[in-house]
């Protein structure tokens, strides 16, 4: 056949392939649009049609949230799914932490400790799943047991708890350890309450209890939600929510600046200056309840001397660190637990101010003295420190490197993937690395995890008799006041021993469109993306 004549059909086939491919994309868009239309229709036919008093009538009724990641599945027992479902108002737990760190009931009505090992939880009598089924004690037990069976991440929160239904509205919780804070444990996102009898492979069959119902879902791309008309409390003012996955952090910044999204979540601190210059967005930068911490390998001879560890802490200008590495959006903490709002009084309990002279004295006492070039030496060896960083902590590492260099310490930075830190920990070949663990939870569990010889987060191998004794006393404390006092004492004592160096809570940067009102900043990122008071206003 003539080759020229064949070219035309080939071109036609190529165009048809492109057309076919675009059809798929279009179909997805049309489906999504169709769902939105249906949701809008459902919303308009309802008494509360999404127009809250004071809202701009011409304002959009679809809230678009650009996030680093969205749910990969609909089943709350899949990894992280429950956190996303709670964040966008689809799922609820029995309790939640308010922005001040106080535990408040959500699906529960109240909780009472009957004795050291028993709690009784009354359920909200109005609470219902989307299907209309009541959230009664049997349903709650079934949900928690399903999570226990299928979600490994829930284990730390309920492994010591046994649930049983006393009656339809009362749940009894037996604890294996005495004086456990059950409401606190049941405020973690992994304990999301869902209808255990429902199937979680489709938006039509899944059954949660939140103020928004999922109406369309494309895994790791987009989730669409509409108001749950049977919701027991104040219905949200905004009719629909779209949770979109935009993995690139700079694109999320541009997304909110362009108006394509109204909330852009998990933004880099480096974008703060750019966002502050724009009047179309406001910034929410409440630091998370975690502490950026330098973990020291106490197996290294140089760090076995407490004076060296203390010198490293005295020689850090935390305010400067925050300015350089967190754009000023955090506050200094010198003890590990004090990034938790409940222990705010311990923020500067030790190493109250930047004191390089004190650091120098301690290093001199430890035998590390400066040579002619200012490098501290001992037995002919320089004082070196290799600091491993990951994620967005490169600037933090470099600022620490500079500050320690002023003391005569030769610090080098190794920036890379977190798995490199894991590998170094497994081999034991490391000096120091930066990590930020959550400090919100039961103080005994948290401190034991970090500082007891068996603690999974005790990477440096800290083993101190006094610290162990304080932790044991904390475990046995029977009332809230003594628990708090003992936690503070242990926290301060450990900070003095400096097995780790606490720096500041890691800031969370969220940009909110100025057309949106009612966004609540929260130290727990999964608690706050959506709330019933959000509404659109004229900018």
């Amino acid at each position: 056949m003539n080759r020229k004549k064949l070219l035309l059909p080939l071109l036609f086939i190529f165009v048809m392939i492109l057309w076919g491919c675009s059809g798929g994309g279009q179909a997805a868009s049309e489906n999504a649009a169709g769902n939105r239309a249906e949701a809008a229709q459902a919303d308009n036919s309802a008494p509360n049609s999404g127009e809250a008093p004071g809202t701009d009538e011409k304002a959009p009724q679809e809230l678009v949230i650009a996030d680093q990641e969205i749910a990969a599945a609909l089943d709350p027992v899949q990894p992280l799914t429950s956190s996303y479902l709670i964040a966008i108002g689809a799922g609820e737990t029995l309790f939640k932490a308010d922005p001040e760190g106080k535990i408040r009931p959500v699906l529960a009505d109240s909780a009472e400790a009957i004795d050291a090992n028993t709690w009784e939880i009354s359920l909200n009598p109005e609470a219902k799943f989307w299907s209309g089924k009541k959230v009664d004690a049997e349903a709650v037990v079934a949900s928690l047991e399903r999570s226990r069976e299928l979600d490994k991440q829930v284990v730390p929160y309920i492994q010591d708890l046994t649930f049983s239904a006393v009656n339809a509205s009362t749940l009894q919780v037996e604890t294996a350890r005495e004086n456990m804070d059950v409401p606190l444990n049941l405020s973690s996102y992994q304990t999301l309450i869902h209808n255990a009898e429902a199937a979680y492979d489709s938006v039509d069959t899944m059954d949660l209890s939140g103020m928004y119902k999922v109406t369309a879902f494309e895994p790791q791309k987009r989730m669409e939600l509409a108001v749950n008309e049977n919701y027991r409390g104040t219905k949200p003012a905004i009719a629909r929510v779209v949770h979109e996955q935009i993995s690139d952090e700079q694109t999320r910044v541009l997304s909110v600046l362009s108006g394509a999204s109204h909330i852009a979540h998990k933004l880099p601190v480096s974008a703060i200056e750019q966002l502050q210059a724009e009047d179309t967005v406001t910034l929410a930068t409440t630091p998370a309840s975690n502490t950026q911490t330098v973990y020291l390998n106490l197996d290294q001879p140089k760090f076995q001397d407490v004076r060296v560890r203390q010198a490293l802490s005295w020689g850090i200008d935390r305010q400067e660190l925050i300015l350089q590495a967190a754009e000023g959006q955090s506050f200094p903490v010198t003890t590990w637990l004090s990034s938790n709002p409940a222990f705010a009084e311990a923020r500067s309990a030790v190493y109250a101010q930047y004191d390089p002279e004190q650091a120098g004295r301690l290093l001199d006492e430890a035998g590390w003295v400066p040579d002619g070039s200012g490098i501290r030496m001992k037995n002919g060896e320089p004082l070196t420190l290799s600091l491993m960083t990951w994620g967005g902590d490169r600037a933090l590492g470099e600022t620490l490197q500079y500050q320690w260099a002023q003391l005569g310490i030769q610090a080098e930075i190794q920036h890379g993937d977190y798995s490199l830190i894991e590998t170094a920990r497994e081999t034991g070949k490391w000096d120091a690395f930066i990590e930020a663990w959550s400090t919100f939870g039961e103080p005994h569990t948290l401190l034991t995890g970090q500082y007891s010889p068996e603690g999974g987060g005790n990477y440096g191998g800290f083993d101190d008799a006094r610290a162990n004794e304080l932790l044991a006393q904390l475990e046995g404390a029977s009332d809230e006041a003594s628990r708090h006092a003992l936690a503070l004492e242990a926290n301060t004592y450990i900070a003095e021993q400096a097995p780790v160096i606490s720096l500041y809570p890691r800031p969370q940067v969220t940009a909110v469109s100025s057309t949106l009102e009612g966004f609540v900043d929260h130290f727990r990122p999964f608690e706050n993306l959506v709330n019933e008071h959000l509404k659109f206003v004229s900018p």
Partner: protein
Amino acid sequence: MGRRLLLTFLQTLMTVFAASIVLFALIRLAPGDPAKLLIGRTMEIALDERTYAKMLGEMRTEMGLTGSWFSQYLSWAGSLLRMDLGTSFYTQRAVAAEIGERLPATFLLAGTALLIQVGIGLLIGMLSALHAGTLLDTLVRLGCVLLASVPGFVIGLLLLLALAVKLELYAIGSEAGLSRLWLPALTLGLLGAPQMIRVVRANLLSELGQVYVQSALSRGLGTRRVVGHAMRNVLLSTITLIGLSLTASISGAVVIESIFAWPGLGEYALNGILHKDYPALQGYALVTVLSVVGIHLTVEALYVWLDPRITRRKKEAAHE
């Protein structure tokens, strides 16, 4: 003919087999434990050592990570023979279904980007060659150097800033519709254009220096017609480049897909890397290898079809 087809098929099979082994090993050589990641890093500090170790062991067994690499490879290869790419560690969905959902978006982006790249490459390359040595030619070459030296993510973000934020001509989102196609396609097309422009320019200049062109011109044939003839030969030599560009767009658009939140295979691979999702990465790698092999075979076939001299030379060589 039949023998040649069989030989090509066997070569292809060997290539895919060798690539699958290399990719399988490379994915596992990367540091990090997918089981630890899936359980959640918090568990390491929230649980005592024994409980954590027990849980990790159970998780590794569930994920099929307990045997040797060889047995894991055999298991995966066995699944492949049953047309099963496995189940994603992270989403618990069939990898084949997930790739199937994203493949059209990637083909759409790659195809459109290729059209843009070829269009720009042919037009500007031809103009540059026809005006060789002039200011226009210098500007084109300078532009090519500039464009080729700026990383793709910078161009992508600058275009987003200009067209989505400042001019409001483009909507940032996560859907793969036609309205969202043009900017990532333009970016990807622009990124590949300098190479195409330079190849077209160089080849056209070379063709224009050929005796047949000079004699055609001296016989009074119009310049446009002569250039038309020369361009046919230039097109032939750009087929390889087009094939390579398409391969790069399908397998390597990770950055562009991520920046534009384009839900294609590149973004899927990125998610797979973040979650150390071996089945997802293996599936992505296999599809990429198959695409690359498929495109190369097509290019080879096109060459033979478009340039009969190749077949003739091979026949002559066989006779000798």
